[in-house]
């Protein structure tokens, strides 16, 4: 049995209305100021470091994103921490507020499908975050040009754009999660608490728990380099349950052309270097090869966002409209 008409009828109208709600709402202004002030703060202190140490770095501009100031996190760590907060802030009451305002049944009595409402809300949320991230990204680049006194090279711009895209996908994962909670929980406060709780767990607790869990699956003794790499692989597999870990791996490779494997930073922290046959250690990779290194992670994150959205979608389609 096929239903008539397009599932996306009214999508544009819903998206436009939601977008204008987000962009004019007080909540979004608060979130934007929070992120922009923190991010620009760490970039500014990072710049002081960059100027002192690495004048001859060929990818100086990318250091804007990854170099941390004294005792401060880097720009990408701030994003990794705050982007989920923005996504949850936008998404936690998308559906349950329609229920609580008793607008849901009235809107669904118009000639549109539920698909358009849900998809429009997700799209508008993601567009809002994208607008914020693009503005922030341009501000960082502008700040870099002003303080470092040189323009970024084409390769650096491409890598920075790739990072921007990955950040939007990362935001999409959390937005889909927040949307899911807004569908499942009738109370907006419960949905917000559940989403924030999961965010804190995955961001703060999981990185501490994951190595212990990984240790249960590998032998204690590491004899050969191959064993060490597989050991690290298991640890990474556990860490990747948190989208923040995936995001960190991806931007770590995208923003540093000398990184050839996501395990390289882990090895470096053990005082080891990764030497691949037929390659010069420390030589930069072309952008496409860097992307190839983290392609599974990128695809995994996109798939995660779609998966979470689809679960929410299926539940929403089966929910009763009445309050």
């Amino acid at each position, binding site marked *: 049995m*096929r*239903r008539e008409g397009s599932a996306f009828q009214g999508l544009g109208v819903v998206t436009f209305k939601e977008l204008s709600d987000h962009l004019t709402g007080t909540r979004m202004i608060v979130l934007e100021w929070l992120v922009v002030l923190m991010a620009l703060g760490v970039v500014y202190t990072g710049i002081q470091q960059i100027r002192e140490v690495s004048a001859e770095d060929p990818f100086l501009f990318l250091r804007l994103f990854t170099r941390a100031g004294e005792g401060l996190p880097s720009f990408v760590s701030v994003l990794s921490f705050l982007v989920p907060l923005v996504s949850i802030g936008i998404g936690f009451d998308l559906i349950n507020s329609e229920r609580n305002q008793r607008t849901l*049944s*009235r809107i669904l*009595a118009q*000639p549109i499908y539920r698909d358009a409402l849900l998809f429009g809300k997700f799209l508008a949320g993601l567009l809002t975050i994208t607008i914020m991230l693009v503005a922030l990204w341009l501000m960082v680049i502008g700040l870099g040009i002003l303080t470092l006194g040189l323009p970024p090279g084409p390769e650096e711009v491409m890598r920075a754009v790739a990072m921007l895209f990955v950040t939007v996908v990362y935001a999409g994962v959390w937005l889909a999660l927040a949307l899911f909670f807004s569908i499942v929980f009738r109370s907006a406060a419960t949905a917000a608490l559940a989403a924030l709780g999961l965010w804190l767990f995955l961001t703060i607790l999981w990185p501490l728990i994951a190595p212990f869990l990984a240790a249960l699956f590998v032998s204690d003794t590491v004899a050969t380099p191959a064993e060490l790499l597989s050991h690290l692989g298991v640890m990474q597999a556990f860490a990747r349950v948190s989208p923040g870990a995936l995001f960190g791996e991806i931007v770590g490779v995208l923003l540093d052309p000398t990184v050839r494997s996501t395990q390289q930073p882990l090895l470096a922290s053990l005082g080891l270097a990764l030497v691949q046959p037929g390659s010069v250690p420390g030589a930069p990779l072309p952008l496409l090869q860097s992307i190839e290194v983290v392609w599974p992670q990128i695809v995994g994150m996109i798939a995660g966002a779609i998966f979470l959205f689809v679960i929410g979608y299926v539940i929403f389609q089966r929910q009763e*409209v*009445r309050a």
Partner: protein
Amino acid sequence: MNADTVNADTVIEAKGLTKTYGHAVAVDHISFTVGRGEIFGLLGPNGAGKTTTILMLLGLTDISGGEVSVLGFNPAREPLSVKRRVGYMPDTVGFYDQMTAVDNLSYTARLIGFRKAEREKRIADALARVGLTDAAEKRVGTFSRGMRQRLGLAEILMKGAQVAILDEPTSGLDPHATAELLAIIRAFKSEGVTVLLSSHLLERVQSVCDRVALFSGGHIALMGTVPELGREVLGGGYVVDIEADGAGLAERLALIPGVSGVERTGIGKLRLQADRDVRSEAAAEVVAMQGRLKYLGVQEPSLDAIYTRYFESQIRQDIAAKEGARDAA
């Protein structure tokens, strides 16, 4: 199925419509038809299945069994065609509080797909019809309950709906706001819009409904016009109240053909039970006795009375059936 194959005067047709949630049956094989331009009332206590029936008509909830057609369309398969032609005002209708009345209607109008010029004209007309022109640019958050309900009706007017489905339109309103709302609903009828409304307040909607269906526990217990139901349930009687003086009046009145009983309800007050409207004969009797007629009136059968009486008799029958079963055993 399309609009041509269905009787043009039948707007809503339900046959054996059923909705179950797990083992619980919310709506149990109900059948009814609503004709064009009719005001049809779904009446009954909360939880009797009225809202569920309405949601099935709109395709907003799955149908567990039976058939339903609205304007010749199947709401389960052609929900967009149904929802384009049917206006719906849910129980305690909600709007976006931070937006103005015009912006709220404009959002709906864009979802329906009206172009800008048409949208503005329709919204202005609709707000004028429900008396909200002055509040058009005010935020809905500042509206009273009655204003929200009227805005809900304005949305249906703006949509140009052929059928208006109103769930508990008068609940929570003061008598004045109720009267205003019922006047707007009557105006729907004069424009040929079919109205299906649900309510648990029988008395209030009695005055507007052409026909009613009384719901009880997922069934339609009774259906028809209010006088029809009155005859069926209350024993077909007319009750005529008369206030007049004159000795022996009660005896004279009892002789009028059709009068089955005369009851004294006060000093000079009599109540006649009759199988027809005997007001003119009663008046003639009083005048013939040279008495003074102070009051003469016939009681319309009230839905409340019908409903109460019907369910009382149901309960009595149930008890009798149980006792009968026990005696047999």
